[in-house]
């Protein structure tokens, strides 16, 4: 990496490494398909009991309040051992949003279960008619006395069928102009009557996605986050944090290790043309780590990243795809196997992570939308 540990950091790294070696179940290491929440939650609970589940959360909410370097070391060590990626909607999305915008009651109700891993969250933003043009969303929430009645259809909702709660953007003023001014942010208990959840199979063969149908679902008015019709601002306020979290170099570091293993196994590691591509990819992983540290450093100094965070989303997601292209190349004819390939260096899964990686330039705002954001809001180009 681009930096060396200070003495106390080196000790911290060794502590993390030793603890992970002793506590992460072998069956969960180096997995390329993201295990389902059912399989993952025991590991989530282990991390939670250790106090390491939320390095980036402040201590008052049960986080580690870790320094930037500790966060990075933790990410690097998780990548090194091949730890699986945990459900992040609670830790990275709704948790930080509630810390900033939630009422005391909302924080008290929802933050501890996220830390403990007793509640799993889903994000209800996209709709069949509102993808990149998210502000056109039409799921209606009508305030009737002390509750909202919600009617509509959410889609691409990760793991909704394993989740307990969903935070959703809903239309509360259909006549508002601009359309963004008629959107509110609601917390929906997925066990409410009127909710039907239907999984969608992806090209990677998993069913991480779901559709969520909401038919006259009653949501208590106290589940509104922030003010009525202020949901767009709330959802966007922490987009920088979200883009940052999804660009954690852990994913690319894991991919790089997988490529090296596959390339050694297939023998292409000795090919100079392949080595050049591997060097280029590895250099870009170093650059991503630097960008991540730079961004976290700014965030720690309370300079909000805002639209600048599109840079790291573009770079991180496109790099992850480039790495998976290289993985396919390293595997050659093995690339098509529908299960992990047994090699002298351990099992390597190729097709699945490659196929999985196609989503990263689409979710959380596609690369094209990110470029629009940069052009207009950072580079100040005309419309």
């Amino acid at each position, binding site marked *: 990496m681009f930096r060396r540990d200070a003495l106390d950091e080196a000790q911290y790294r060794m502590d993390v490494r030793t603890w992970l070696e002793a506590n992460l179940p072998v069956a969960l290491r180096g997995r390329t398909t993201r295990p389902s929440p059912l399989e993952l939650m025991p590991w989530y609970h282990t991390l939670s009991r250790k106090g390491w589940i939320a390095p980036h959360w402040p201590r008052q909410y049960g986080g580690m309040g870790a320094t930037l370097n500790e966060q990075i070391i933790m990410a690097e060590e998780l990548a090194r051992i091949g730890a699986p990626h945990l459900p992040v909607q609670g830790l990275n999305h709704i948790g930080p949003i509630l810390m900033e915008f939630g009422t005391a009651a909302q924080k008290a109700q929802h933050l501890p279960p996220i830390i403990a891993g007793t509640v799993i969250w889903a994000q209800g933003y996209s709709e069949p008619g509102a993808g990149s043009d998210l502000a056109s969303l039409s799921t209606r929430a009508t305030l009737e006395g002390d509750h909202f009645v919600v009617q509509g259809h959410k889609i691409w909702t990760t793991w909704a069928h394993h989740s307990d709660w969903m935070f959703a953007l809903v239309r509360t003023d259909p006549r508002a102009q601009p359309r963004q001014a008629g959107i509110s942010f609601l917390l929906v208990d997925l066990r409410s009557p009127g909710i039907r959840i239907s999984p969608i199979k992806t090209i990677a063969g998993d069913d991480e996605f779901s559709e969520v149908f909401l038919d006259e679902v009653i949501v208590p008015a106290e589940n509104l986050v922030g003010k009525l019709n202020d949901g767009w601002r709330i959802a966007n306020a922490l987009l920088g944090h979200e883009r940052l979290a999804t660009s954690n170099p852990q994913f690319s570091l894991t991919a790089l290790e997988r490529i090296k293993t596959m390339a050694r196994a297939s023998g292409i590691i000795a090919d100079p043309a392949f080595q050049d591509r591997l060097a280029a990819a590895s250099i870009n992983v170093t650059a991503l780590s630097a960008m991540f540290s730079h961004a976290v450093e700014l965030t720690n100094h309370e300079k909000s990243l805002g639209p600048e965070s599109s840079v790291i989303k573009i770079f991180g997601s496109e790099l992850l795809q480039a790495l998976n292209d290289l993985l396919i190349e390293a595997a050659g004819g093995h690339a098509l196997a529908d299960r992990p390939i047994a090699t002298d260096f351990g099992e390597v899964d190729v097709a699945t992570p490659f196929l999985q990686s196609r989503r990263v330039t689409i979710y959380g705002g596609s690369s094209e939308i990110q470029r629009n954001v940069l*052009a207009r809001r950072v580079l100040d180009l005309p419309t």
Partner: protein
Amino acid sequence: MDLYLTSEQALLRDSAAKFIEAAGPKAARGFRAQDPSFSAPRLRHAGELGWLGILVPGAAGGLGLGLTELALVLEQAGRGLVCEPIGLAAISAAALGQGRTPHPVLDRAMTGAALIVPAFQESAHGDDPLAPRTHVAGEDGALRLTGKKMFVCADGADGFLVNARGRDGPALCYVARNAPGCTLSRTQTVEGRKLATLTLTDAPADLIPPHSSSRNAVDALHNLVLLALSSELLGVMEKANEITLDYLRLRKQFGKPIGSFQALQHQAANIYVRIEATRSLVFQIAANNDAFCIDPATAIALKAKASEDAMIVTEACIQLHGAIGFTDEHDIGLYLKRAMLLSALFGNAAAQRRRYIAAADLTA
């Protein structure tokens, strides 16, 4: 993305920005094919501002600052197409001042009265600096250098820091330009300045000892070179990008500013992503490394990335200008040529990637 700077660092950056206001494309144009291709008084001015001794400890008369400060000044130098070789001079001064007893030429190197530059390259593609063919023989106090160095920024130089194979491994040596057995043959570049081949035949030289925190004096200076050139490349990219964004806002076709077209907006976004990647690398490496002990693999990674990005960015800037960008009259071409020069020096992107494979232990 903004940098998080101390107020002293911000002041330094601003004073560097002021210095380059007097440089810029017009001055760079004027120095093309001149001898030397920079202003000697301005190099001394940089010396007066302390920049040539920026890494030299206070006890030896320098500013005793770190890599972040060096990078901030050189980023500005790149932005302004500054022709005075501030970066190479400053890191050479750092090397001259790193031993227990500074080299006698240090004082003049820090004031800009003498220009000392590193001369490491022995082939077109950047070599392993720790395995030079140039060799040094003789006893301490009577060392002799023999070998050949290429692509040396010898314009106006009074001496060179040469890496050579010695009895105890790679050694860093100082040789004066007017030393016997030291000859230069110069080639004009398209960028404007000349590069030279330095031939050394039994030339008398002084050994430059390593800094107490270095593994090796050659390794330490080489890593500094890579960081210095990359910082300048960053500035080159930034300014070329700003010029291009201005053009995209002003130039109209089809009745609209061309910057309103999505195809061009996405190109501009791509340029910006590249610049930010290099910027993060430069300043994260600067913030996390001791000046005399930079991790070689990360320095190589940085030079690879900066060299590649600067070429792609300045090429794209010409494309976004259209035909006017292809003219000598327009400044944007000067940024491409500066990127060509700095990318090639001490090994271009492909050469760095080749070295990175071993340095980062990628095939192990």
